[in-house]
């Protein structure tokens, strides 16, 4: 069936079966930053944001159900500069192989939207559905903390330092 998905602000028309999983539809649209890890809804690397701030495992949603809900993938996080969470993953060395990173970052963005000052325990709790095997769990926590700080600074404050 014909559907239109809005991914990172762009409407994409596609022809899918009802059973086509959102993760496959996104990757087939050329956005390979959304990874596939487990085929069984358990790893979280395919996490994308729905409606701006709702993280979902795109392998556990049918593409057709995502119609009418803007989708943000990792490619849509950055504007002209890296998103603070991306900068923080870089600065804090929050990854090794990096395969789980897009899902980690998008889950983190949802957390920070809801809770701008999470404690370490709250960060660990919020990311507990995302697996990392390499495993950079420690630095991921530090990266989320850095991003929280950066996002809480009033605009322009960084430039004044």
């Amino acid at each position, binding site marked *: *069936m014909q559907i239109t998905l809005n991914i990172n602000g762009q409407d994409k028309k596609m022809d899918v*079966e*009802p*059973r086509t*999983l959102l993760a496959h539809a996104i990757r087939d649209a050329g956005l390979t930053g959304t990874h596939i890890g487990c*085929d*069984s*809804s*358990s790893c*979280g690397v395919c*996490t994308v944001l729905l409606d701006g701030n*709702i*993280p*979902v*495992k795109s392998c*556990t*949603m*049918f593409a*057709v*159900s995502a119609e*009418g809900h803007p989708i943000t993938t990792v490619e849509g996080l950055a504007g002209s500069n890296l998103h603070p969470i991306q900068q923080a993953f870089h600065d804090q060395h929050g990854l090794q192989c990096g395969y789980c990173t897009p899902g980690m970052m998008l*889950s983190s963005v*949802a957390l920070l939207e*809801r809770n701008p000052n999470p404690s370490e325990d709250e960060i660990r*709790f*919020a*990311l*507990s*559905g*995302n697996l990392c095997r390499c495993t950079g769990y420690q630095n991921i926590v530090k990266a989320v903390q850095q991003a929280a700080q950066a996002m809480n600074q009033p605009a322009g404050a960084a430039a004044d330092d």
Partner: protein
Amino acid sequence: MIPGAFDYHRPSSVEEAVALMGQYGLEARILAGGQSLIPAMRYRLAQPAVLVDINKLPNLAYLSEENGMLRVGALVRDTDVEFHQDIQSRYHLIADVSQVVADPIVRYRGTVVGSLCHNDPSGDWAATAIAARAQMVIRGQGGERTEAIDDFIVDSFTTSIQEGEMAVEARFPVPNTRTSGAYEKIERKVGDYATAAAAVQLELAQDGTIKEIGIGVTAVALKALRVAEGEKLLRGQKPTRDLIRAAAEEAAKIADPNPDARGSKEYKKDMARVLVGRGLVKALGRLGVKI
């Protein structure tokens, strides 16, 4: 893995959804959050020929108190409960369970009612609903009926919902200030099915005796169980360590788990006992009663 093929319907009203369920009968399944159904379809444990996607239905995402009941609409996501401050502070049992269902991402999409309807024998909401003495509201073409949770839960993956019906709401009694509860769960990792879990809710009378009590256990039998004998031992009594121990023993007695990678039959039975005991102590502690 990918699911089998199906016909997809996206009704715009409950009436339309119910009509579709009547039209396709056993071939059809409701798609709400899909967080249990889609994995089951990917493993081909479920192969519905028709999916009725209710996500676009209006007015099913309500979460409100009315006539002494918390009404949870069929599109209330687990996170709606988890992030709801008033529920978190007043509904101790529900607050506990809302933080351990599946994993945090799954909870953004998964629904309370959907989980109860899926009725996985290791699910968290069924034992919770048993302990809290919840009710289910079911809509059919002939109208609406309300069913006690004990009647609703029939068997593994089987509820009392009939062909041509859908559940539209779960109802939990509003707890008073002398009511508390707890949910205790052992899982190998976040997002795993419970190795065993126990839900407890109790109300103390003014004299410190237990006025009302519900105890449910999950993942230790073909369906979530009410530990009725344990409830009986405690009802009307002042809680003591010995009574709690005896009530917890009742959970082990009725547990009949399958051995698997999560543990042997004996281990799981023992954990049913440990977790019921822990839940009772925690719930009492929340009411200021030290055991």
